[in-house]
C-alpha cells in the first residue's frame, strides 16, 4: 500500500460508486485525505475578482485597488486554488526551497485541471521562469513541475544570467519596489494573442504584473493568471 508523502501514514483508498461507474483506472493518490484537507481551498464564489484572494464579499481588495491607482488598466483576474496559509507555506518550503521534486505530484493533477476548467480556448500558457542559477541549484522550475501536459510558450526569461534576490526573501515594501526582472524571449512580436500566466504563489502581484507589462509591450491581447496559492 502507498504511504502518504506528507505524513508517512498508509493511504486508505475508499472505493466509491462514482469511481466504479466512471470506468476509470484506479489512481494511486500520493497523499492521504487528511493531509489534503489540511490545505484551505478557495471557493471561487467569494473572492476578490482582481487577485483571487479569499474574502467575504466579491469586490476588489485593497491590493487590487492600489494596482488600479498605480495606473493598471486591466487587472490580472488571478484565480488561485488554495489560501497561502501556514500549511501551504510548509508545502512550499519542502517542495521549492528544500527542493523535494516529488512533492509536485501532490497538486500536479488538480492544479492542471483547475487551469483547464477555468480558462477558455485560444490562450497561450506562459509559466513564470526561474533564473538560470536557481534552475541549476534547484534542478527544476517549480511552476512547470505543477503542470501536466500543458503546452507552454516560452516568452519570458530573466534579464541577467546571475542569480537575483528572490522575492520570497524580501519585505512587502521591497517586493513592490522590485524592478522589471524579465525580458521578452519570443522569436517574433505578438499579434494580439491572449495569454494566461502561471505561477506558484500570488503574494503582492508584483512579479505577475511585471510579466504582464513585458507581454503587453510586445502586443499581447488580454492577459490573465492562475496560481496555486494566494
Amino acid at each position: 500500500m502507498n504511504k502518504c508523502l506528507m505524513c508517512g501514514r498508509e493511504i486508505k483508498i475508499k472505493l466509491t460508486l462514482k469511481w466504479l461507474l466512471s470506468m476509470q483506472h484506479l489512481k494511486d493518490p500520493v497523499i492521504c485525505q487528511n493531509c489534503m484537507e489540511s490545505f484551505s481551498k478557495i471557493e471561487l464564489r467569494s473572492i476578490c475578482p482582481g487577485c483571487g484572494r479569499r474574502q467575504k464579499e466579491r469586490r476588489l481588495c485593497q491590493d487590487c485597488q492600489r494596482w488600479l491607482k498605480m495606473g493598471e488598466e486591466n487587472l490580472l483576474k488571478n484565480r488561485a486554488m488554495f489560501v497561502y496559509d501556514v500549511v501551504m507555506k510548509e508545502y512550499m518550503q519542502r517542495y521549492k526551497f528544500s527542493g523535494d521534486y516529488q512533492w509536485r505530484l501532490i497538486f500536479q493533477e488538480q492544479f492542471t485541471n483547475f487551469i483547464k476548467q477555468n480558462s477558455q480556448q485560444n490562450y497561450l500558457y506562459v509559466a513564470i521562469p526561474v533564473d538560470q542559477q536557481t534552475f541549476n541549484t534547484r534542478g527544476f522550475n517549480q511552476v512547470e513541475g505543477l503542470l501536466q501536459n500543458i503546452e507552454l510558450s516560452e516568452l519570458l526569461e530573466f534579464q541577467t544570467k546571475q542569480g537575483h534576490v528572490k522575492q520570497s526573501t524580501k519585505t512587502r515594501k521591497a517586493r513592490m519596489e522590485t524592478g522589471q526582472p524579465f525580458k521578452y524571449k519570443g522569436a517574433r512580436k505578438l499579434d494580439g494573442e491572449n495569454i494566461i500566466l502561471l505561477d506558484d504563489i500570488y503574494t503582492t502581484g508584483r512579479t505577475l504584473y511585471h510579466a504582464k507589462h513585458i507581454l503587453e509591450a510586445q502586443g499581447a491581447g488580454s492577459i490573465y493568471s492562475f496560481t496555486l496559492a494566494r
Partner: protein
Amino acid sequence: MDKTELYGRLLLDTELTMELRRSLIDRAQPAVVQQGNYIECQRCLSKTRKEQAMLPNGTYYCPQCILLGRVSSTNQLYHLNEPNLFSKLTQTPLSWQGQLSPFQQNCSKKLIKALDRPGKYLMWAVTGAGKTEMLFPMLTKALLQKKRICLASPRVDVCNELYPRIVAAFRKITPVLLHGHSKQSYQYSQLTICTTHQLLRFQHAFDLLIIDEVDAFPFVNSQMLKKAAKRAMKISGTLVYLTATPTKNMLVRIKQNKLPVSYLPIRFHRKLLPVPQVWLLNHWQNKLARKKFPVKLTNCLRKWSKDALPFLVFVPNIELLKPVLQVLRSVLPKNVLGDSVYSADPQRITKVQAMRDHQLNYLVTTTILERGVTFPSLNVMILGADERTFSVSALVQIAGRVGRSQKRPYGDVIFICQDYVKNVKDAVQQIKDLNKKGDKLLNE
C-alpha cells in the same frame, strides 16, 4: 569552521565553509552513485528508482533523507577519521550523587562488561526502572577511556529530556545536543546526544552508541536509520539498545542467544507495574458521535478529576482529538482544564509543560506521549485500545506512564475496547509476566 568539526562526520559540501572545502578538496566523495535503474545516496545509503530521483536539469536527488538538506548528484561528501582527541580525565567525570539500587547495580555491572567487547547489547528494563541512571557507571568508564560516545533516540522529546540530566550528572563534560529544532550548533565533543536522524551525519565516529527507546517510531521500521546507526559506529564499537518493550525480532534474537541482554523487571521504587483494566464498551464510538460518553466512562473521569489527579486520554487518531476534548469539557466541572496535543501541534511543547506545571489537569493525545514523558500521580485511559495504531509495545508503554513516582507508585490504567483483540491481550499478559518476574526478584 575548523577541521575538528569533520572528525567522524559525513557532511555535504554545502555544509562546509568554502575555506575548509578548499583545503580538503582531494578528499571529496560523490554524494550520489548510479547503479543501473537506481541511484544510491551515499549519505543515507538508500536506493531510489531513477525516474523518482531525476530532476529536469538532468541531475538526481535523494528524496529519502531530504529533511537533513537535499543530497543531489551535484554534491560531494566529506569525512575525516575520528582521532579521539579528548583531554585525559584525571578523576571521575561523574558528579551525580545518587545511589543505584542493588537491582540497578547488577544491571549496570553487566553494561560495563559490554563496553569491553564490540557488538550489540540490549538493556531491557521496565518503564520507570531508572534506565538513565544505570548508564552512568558505563558512561563514566567510557569517558575515562577517552572513548567517543553517542546517546541517540528516535524521539526528540527523549533527547530533550536526556540532555539536562546528562549535563547535570557529568559537569566536567560539555555534551552537544543535536536535532532538527536544536539551537545549538555542532561542536566536536566526546559526548553527543541526538536524534537517530542526526546519525546520518556521522561515519565511524563512536566507540559507544546507545540508542534509547529503540523500538520507537521512526527508528523501528526504518532501514535507513538502522544503516545510519551501524555506520556511525566504529567497526570495533559497542552498540547498546535500551527499551522497556523489545520488538519481536529482538525477542527472537535473545532466545537464539544472538543478542546479549541484561534484564530488569522491577521499577526503581520496587513496586510492580499497574495492570490495565480492560473495559469492553462497544457503544463508545456511537455515543461519541452524539457528543456523549458511556456512563461508566464519565463516572471514572469525574472521579479522577474530583481526586485532583492529572490524567491522559489516548485516542487512535488525530481526528478524534477534537470531539473527545469537546465531550470531556462538557462532562467535567469548569475548573478542570484540559487540552489536546499531537505530533505536528505547534504548541506541543508548551502544552506538555503546562501539564507538568499543573496548569492543565488532562491532555487528550495521540501516541506521541506514549513514552519519554513522566507526570507524577498520573492516571491514563485509552479510547479504542483495540485499534491498530496501538501496538503491543505502545499499550505497554502507555500503561507504563502510571505509578512512576515514589509517592504514588500505583494508579489507574484503563483500556476502552470494542473487541478484546490480540494486541490488548498480549499487552496485558506482558505486564503480568513482567510483574511475576519482578515479584520473584523481590522475594529472592
